């Protein structure tokens, strides 16, 4: 083999360093967050009315300086930066322990779908207020009898008498922030004859429309994390159909991929929690080695799981940048982050021992309860394993 064949253009060789421009971007993000992030724990829970509005105000602050949706085009309120810069932003955001994003459902679940399937009118109408926090979205995905089995949706839409829109009827559940959101996106059956995946349509519904009612669902810790939504002949104009009548399944699957995949779960969330776990371990080790040592392996594993997730995200991002796509790997991703989140918090609680059941000041317990939902929502991990086995390994359907 000739040596010349091995000469590589430098810009093509593997390189895990950030460019100077990326490092400058990071510095800018960090400085802004340092100046603006409210002290940890000062915002009330975003699952209360006052907390919801306090978090909306934070979204306004972010948006005012164009930090709410950095990867969006400038026209819609973003900065048009790339995926690597978005990951950098997220790393800094979590490192700064900035508030949870009340606008997350819209930004991370609906927006990617709207960029793909939305008309220009829809994008102009919906994206700017989503970016600014003026309009907060909740999802209308699951139904009481269609949880993991999304194709079993029964909520239906029939043509409105004026033939300028649809009348929606049915029940949706597990809508995070459903009690306070302005808008809802979700699937309704527009063709009752079609089977399962077919005949569904993706609607954008104003929550204040006549016929919409909401029942908050208290979570196991007593907080109101999500809500049931009831629709009774709710009128939705044709302009609020996303991606075409009867196309709902394909449109929704794009969003589902995004929920499971890259965009919802930035690795920074886990790497930051893992770093705090190492701190907790070190403090426990200093206090009482016999208490800490049995968890050395679990602490190291949790840290590694978070770090492996970070590396895998950069690996995937590089593939996407090179024109690749994310398919069933999103299912592998979802299994990994949900198990990582649980492992981090379970290990922290083990280090805390009996103190772990205290609620006063115990952020690890709140994090654990949150992590418990991970293997369940956005498609249970059982469903994800089916996807991995069938689509990545070619095993036959059951």
């Amino acid at each position, binding site marked *: 083999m000739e040596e010349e064949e091995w000469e590589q253009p430098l810009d093509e060789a593997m390189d895990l360093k950030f460019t100077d421009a990326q490092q400058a971007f990071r510095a800018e993000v960090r400085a802004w967050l340092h100046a603006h992030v409210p002290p940890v724990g000062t915002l009330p829970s975003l699952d209360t009315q006052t907390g919801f509005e306090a978090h909306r105000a934070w979204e306004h602050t972010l948006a005012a300086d164009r930090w709410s949706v950095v990867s969006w085009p400038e026209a819609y309120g973003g900065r048009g930066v790339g995926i690597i810069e978005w990951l950098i932003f997220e790393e800094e955001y979590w490192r700064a322990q900035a508030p949870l994003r009340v606008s997350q459902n819209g930004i991370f679940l609906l927006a990617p779908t709207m960029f793909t399937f939305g008309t220009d009118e829809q994008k102009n109408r919906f994206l700017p207020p989503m970016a600014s926090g003026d309009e907060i979205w909740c999802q209308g995905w*699951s139904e009481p*009898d*269609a*949880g*993991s*089995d999304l194709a*079993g949706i029964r909520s239906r839409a029939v043509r409105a008498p004026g033939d300028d829109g649809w009348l929606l009827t049915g029940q949706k*559940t*597990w809508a995070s922030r459903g009690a306070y959101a302005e808008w809802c996106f979700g699937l309704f059956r527009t063709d009752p004859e079609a089977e399962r995946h077919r005949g569904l349509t993706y609607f954008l519904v104003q929550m204040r429309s006549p016929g919409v009612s909401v029942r908050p*669902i*208290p*979570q*196991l*810790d*007593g907080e109101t994390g999500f809500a049931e939504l009831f629709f009774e002949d709710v009128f939705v104009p044709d302009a609020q159909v996303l991606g075409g009548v009867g196309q709902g399944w394909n449109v929704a699957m794009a969003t589902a991929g995004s929920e499971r995949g890259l965009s919802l779960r930035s690795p920074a969330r886990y790497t930051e929690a893992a770093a705090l776990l190492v701190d*907790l371990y070190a*403090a*426990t080790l*200093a*206090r*009482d080695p*016999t208490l800490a040592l*049995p*968890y050395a392996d679990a602490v190291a594993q949790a840290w590694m799981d978070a770090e492996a997730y970070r590396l895998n995200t950069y690996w995937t991002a590089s593939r996407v940048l090179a024109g690749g796509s994310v398919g069933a790997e999103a299912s592998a991703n979802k299994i990994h982050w949900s198990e990582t989140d649980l492992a981090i918090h379970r290990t922290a*609680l*083990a280090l*805390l*021992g*009996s*103190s*772990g*059941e*205290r*609620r*006063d*000041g*115990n952020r690890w*317990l709140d994090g654990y309860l949150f992590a*418990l*939902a991970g*293997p*369940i*929502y956005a498609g*249970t*991990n*059982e469903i994800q*394993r089916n996807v991995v086995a069938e689509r990545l390994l070619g095993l036959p359907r059951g």
Partner: protein
Amino acid sequence: MRFSFTEQQIAFRDSLRQLLDKQCTPTDLRAAYERPEARTTRWAALADLGVVGMTVPDAHGGLGLGMTDLVLVLEEAGRVGLPEPLMETTALAAPLLARALTPRSSALLTEIASGSLTAAVADHRAMPPPWADDAPGPSSRGGKAGGNQPVGPRGDPGGSPTGSLRCELVAGAQGADLYLLPTTFSGGRPELHALRAEAVSVLPVAALDPTRRLGTVGWDPTPSSLVAAGEEAHLALADLEVSAALATAAELLGLADRMIDLASSYARDRHQFGKPIGSFQAVKHLLAGAQVKLEFARPAVYAAAWSLDEERDPGSREHSSRRASLAKAYAADAATEAARVALQVHGAIGYTWECDLQLFLKRTWALAEAWGSATDHRRRLLTSLIEER
């Protein structure tokens, strides 16, 4: 070799189960969540049945029974998530008081048997949480007999109990009538004290399961509150650790069984993809795995109970101590696994307040860590195995 319960023991267990099925429903538990310290008719009913005084000697109105009888009862308490401190009162306090009978302890035992007294018992190893202002630094943690901290000025908004000594994370502390509290004086000399409610100051601690009635207890030792000192207290506390590990293990068996029941029942009823989710192999295998762990935890707990009754001589409980560690580790892992699996099988429903499962999840997580985690007990067991060689 006869490793089984008597018909009488089973019959007593069954009558208790009937009582609790009626008087300790999930609705009752939700009421207890609102007012954890409230007295209910349930405690009196349990006393009438003889349950509360099971371990109180006959002479003081109890049944004079041992751990072998008690584990079946505690298993039932676990199954229904009993909010009252039966374990603290009957499995821990009564035997401690009965070790050295004085007029005072005799009177307390009689009160226990009559159902007029609930007890809280402090774990002398419990520490303030690491995020507390006064959490100990590297050098302030003592040896085995450490645990309570001198009370200094504290800035925490929740306030602070009064008294020169403080016991942390005391289960059953809210609303108890009697407090059994250990302390260690300089030089490592341990003491065990019993104080009535009016002599202690209790600061409630917010817990995920409010019916644990957790509190920080401030108190002052007096000569009249002394129950045991020196070597006697040392043995009493060692015994307490063993009994408490076993008692929590027994409750965890009942909890695991209840959670597997709830999840199996849900899996039979809930349909997805056109059939009951319990017909999917993934769901089956989750529940089967938990069930296998539970099946093997049960004899481990029962054998430990028998050993504890067999080795009555204080200070020579090597065998029963090891078995109690095996029991606690196995039951805690079985119940933790049952909790994980039951939540996963329920899906989002299991994550709601409305679903009964949450009541048992929270109790399980608390008891798995109380009186030594599975890992703690594995460590103890291994140390004992290596020393024996």
